[in-house]
């Protein structure tokens, strides 16, 4: 039995050799170069301040996708399960924080003062914690009993959980778009003719802080080490005295913390949510995780960022009707040439 890595390497070398492989390589380079030239002319046409403005939107857009993608990638990395319910936990985060804002006294149309920062922080933390607890409960109820079952079984319970959560959100706020209170100031500061809004700054800053915090946590902390060990070889980790159940639960918890934060930011930034948001946003975020290399935390962050940026730049410079097509064309191209994603996947080898 060859490992996944070996199979992937073989596949890649198959592609690279032979006339066909070389033709593919050259074709790809021509396509990419042609596209870059087209993009450059468009960028020059629109001027630098417009570029900067779109860049700010793009990074904010990508930051939110990155936060959702991290949850998918962490869970996949440790138990090789696509947690379909993750997108819905994220959607739950948008709903919960939308309801919490008026409760703590943050209403649309009121000035955003220093005290509001504190209140907003409370909303962030509560949403993150509740999402975390929800995800751990999902793991306990729907995934843990099936840990030794064939791999398709937990996949199906994951789909089931996703539908269950969607249904619950549907019952909670109905099927219409849910308006999210616009509480952040729409002011911004000007730089080279572009206006970087407070919203973009907050979204970008929070995303960066959370990604770095997560990376440090996984790399440096005891629990992070346990997570990496469990991901590499569950049985060996158990023999070394690591509590597997607890470690996996912690992974779900942390993934959902990020989804909760992502949900709150999604609402604050886009001003809207809907009960089946978890499906559409989750699909893009999962794509981002695969794009960056599933199981790889940095990969998910970069994958989310890249997809968000493609989306915004395409909307900003080209025809929006093609945005989804372009994202997936790029995804296919990347996976054909780098089957393990941009940064390479990190999954247990069996």
């Amino acid at each position, binding site marked *: 039995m060859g490992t996944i890595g070996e199979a992937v390497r073989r596949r890649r070398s198959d592609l690279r050799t032979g006339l066909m492989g070389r033709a593919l390589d050259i074709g790809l380079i021509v396509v990419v170069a042609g596209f870059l030239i087209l993009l450059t002319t468009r960028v020059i046409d629109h001027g630098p301040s417009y570029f900067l403005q779109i860049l700010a939107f793009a990074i904010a857009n990508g930051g939110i996708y990155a936060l959702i993608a991290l949850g998918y990638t962490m869970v996949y990395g440790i138990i090789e399960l696509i947690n379909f319910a993750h997108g819905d936990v994220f959607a739950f985060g948008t709903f919960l924080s939308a309801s919490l804002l008026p409760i703590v006294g943050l209403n649309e149309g009121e000035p955003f003062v220093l005290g509001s920062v504190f209140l907003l922080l409370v909303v962030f933390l509560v949403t993150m914690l509740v999402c975390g607890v929800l995800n751990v409960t999902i793991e306990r109820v729907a995934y843990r009993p099936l840990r030794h079952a064939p791999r398709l079984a937990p996949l199906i319970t994951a789909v089931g959980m996703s539908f269950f959560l969607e249904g619950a959100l549907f019952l909670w706020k109905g099927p*219409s778009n849910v*308006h999210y209170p616009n509480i952040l100031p729409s002011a911004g500061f000007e730089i080279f003719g572009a206006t970087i809004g407070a919203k973009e700054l907050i979204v970008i800053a929070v995303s960066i802080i959370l990604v770095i915090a997560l990376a440090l946590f996984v790399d440096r902390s005891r629990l992070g080490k346990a997570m990496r060990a469990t991901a590499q070889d569950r049985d060996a980790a158990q023999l070394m005295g690591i509590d597997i159940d607890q470690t996996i639960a912690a992974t779900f918890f942390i993934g959902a913390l990020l989804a909760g934060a992502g949900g709150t930011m999604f609402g604050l930034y886009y001003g809207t949510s809907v009960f089946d948001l978890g499906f559409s946003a989750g699909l893009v975020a999962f794509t981002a995780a695969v794009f960056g290399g599933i199981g790889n935390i940095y990969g998910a962050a970069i994958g989310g960022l890249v997809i968000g940026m493609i989306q*915004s730049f395409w909307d900003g410079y080209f025809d929006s009707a093609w945005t989804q097509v372009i994202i997936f064309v790029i995804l296919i191209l990347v996976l054909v040439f780098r089957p393990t994603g941009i940064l390479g996947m990190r999954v247990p080898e069996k």
Partner: protein
Amino acid sequence: MKRRWLSATAVLAGLAIVAAACGQAAPAGGGGADKGEIIIASNFPTSGADRASGRGPEAGVAYAVQLNGNIKGFKITHKPYDDAVNGVHDPQKGAQNFTDMVSNAKILGVVGPFNSNVARATIPVANRASLVMISPANTNECLTQDFPYCDPKPAALRPTGKNNYFRIAAPDTVQGPAMADFAIDTLKATKIAIWSDNETFGKGVADNFGKRVTAKGGTVVVRQDFDVKSTNDFRPFLQRAKDAGAQAIYAGATSATKGCIPRAQMKGIFTTDIPYMGPDGIGDTQCIKDAGDNATSNMYFTNAAADASQDAANKALIDDFKTKFTAKEDLGAYTFPGYDSAKILLDAVGRAIDTAGGKMPTREQVVQAVQDTKNLKLSTGTYSFDKNGDPTAATMAFYQYKGGDWSFVKQFSVGQ
């Protein structure tokens, strides 16, 4: 084995109960309805996000049937169908509904659907059974008229070759251009950015809007069609519009396809408030909610039907309606067009009964009777139909956001 028998018995018992309930639902010809029952069906999106659009006309039909419970000895009942799936109108659900209607011999006509893409999917189903349809709200021009860009052609929707589809709303060849005239003449905007939800209706009305803007010497500075399901960020589009000097934005969309979410995101990008316009699809409370704190009097929509309350003669009718239908979404821009469509159908059924010699008319007779409708004066206008099924005269109304709700601006009659 025993358990299997048990569950089989349970299923059978369940079926029996359902069958019994269905049996009871059919009334055993009481009251003045000696000759039998005629059902008027309606098909609108009445759950979820789309309920704000679809419930109004449904209530209108229900009201019309309430007022006309008996025609020439036949008992008239209303059977409502919902074509929304997960809160959004769905062409396949509509087609399913129509298949069900076709198989019910008591159904002699349908009022609806609300959305043009649903109409496109359902006209062929009804056409094969010669079931007459009257829509109060469909506006896509290709449903009735043949233009070079139409795909499918109106003839392709009518496999029997005989028309069974009528509407009282003005087509998008009128609705889009009407708003373009309004934007250029009244709002004095010449540079306009347009986006659409890429649906039959949204894209069609946006195209027609754009054509008229160009024809009147204005400029379409940006034009985008979005896959709205996966788009939450309209900022790049808005920024592009601003950069190109847009003085107004037109949304070819409905509230269910995120029609007014860009309006909320405009805040912070457009430092000075510019007009935001759309077709009848955004003329509901959902749009106002979605626009959030950026809902201002700079928001406009066109309605492809007259505002019944503008005619003083309708006051008693509307007041009576309000006492019987009290929910907020019951009285919308399309409530009385729905009511009028049902009245046209009921009037035609009455004449068809005469044609059939007082017996239950055939569906073909009802179609012919609707086609023969001549200058029928109703709450939103006086109706006759041309051979395509379009009204010979329609009304276009303009609404503006004011103090928490949409308010009427003006209306005018348009020929085809």
